[in-house]
């Protein structure tokens, strides 16, 4: 019974990520790619995303410190970042990327800076929630291999 309760907890946690608008359909696509050949695929991809995007975040932070702002460069960085965020289904992060690029096109530096702060918050929040989710999911294990009482 405890195991069933844990599985349900994992499922509810997962659903909340979608209900809160943090993840979209692309995350489901990644889950569908996970199988015996790639048992930790989703977690690996998310880990790779956070590792790769750390460099982009740093680049954008540094570019936002410069004066005058190079909007073309900023847009280029954000284009890459958005591509990666989209590929893991990071819905809110992706929205902030889109907004940032609109500010770049408008040459609005303050808008860019403000949006980037919000983006970093969403990025960190998603990371924390996914880490918790993956940790719990690993502890509980897949539903198919749940232990049966003998």
């Amino acid at each position: 019974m405890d195991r069933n309760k844990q599985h349900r907890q994992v499922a509810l946690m997962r659903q909340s990520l979608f209900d809160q608008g943090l993840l979209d359909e692309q995350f489901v696509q990644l889950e569908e790619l996970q199988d015996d050949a790639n048992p930790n695929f989703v977690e690996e991809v998310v880990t790779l995303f956070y590792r790769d995007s750390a460099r982009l975040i740093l680049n954008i932070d540094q570019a936002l410190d410069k004066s005058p702002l190079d909007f073309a460069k900023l847009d280029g960085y954000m284009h890459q970042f958005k591509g990666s965020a989209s590929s893991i289904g990071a819905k809110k992060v992706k929205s902030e990327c889109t907004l940032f690029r609109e500010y770049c096109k408008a040459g609005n530096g303050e808008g860019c800076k403000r949006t980037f702060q919000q983006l970093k918050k969403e990025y960190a929040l998603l990371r924390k929630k996914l880490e918790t989710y993956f940790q719990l999911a690993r502890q509980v294990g897949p539903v198919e291999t749940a232990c049966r009482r003998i």
Partner: protein
Amino acid sequence: MEKMGFGNVTSTSKTMKIIDTEKKISVLIVEDNLLIQKIHKVMMTKFGTEVQLATNGKEAVDLFLSGASFDLVLTDLEMPIMDGIEATKQLRSMGVTSMIVGVTSRNQDSEIQAFMNAGLNACYVKPLNAEKVTVVLNELKNI
């Protein structure tokens, strides 16, 4: 614009269908973003294809110049050294008749049209998903 080239995506099934062929379909994924490369590779492998990777357009062109051939090329647009438009133009001018499908995060009609004009068979907005892959592989099977 979500796609251009083949007919409308009619499949709504999320099941990954392995296309039954005697020989595995060979796919070259041309993509500089390692994360997207990984996702697309696993996706295409799951569909039963044999996948090779190139990280920019020049690597893709060099592969064909060295005599490699692929049934399908999935290429990003924006890449360092040589982008997808230039790579597609060069492949076509070399006489490459493989199916070349663009996969780009650009979604403006003009940008996608420019990519198509380079010689693509179709173009999709990223990210790839099972539905899009099914359409592409079925189209390839029907050629």
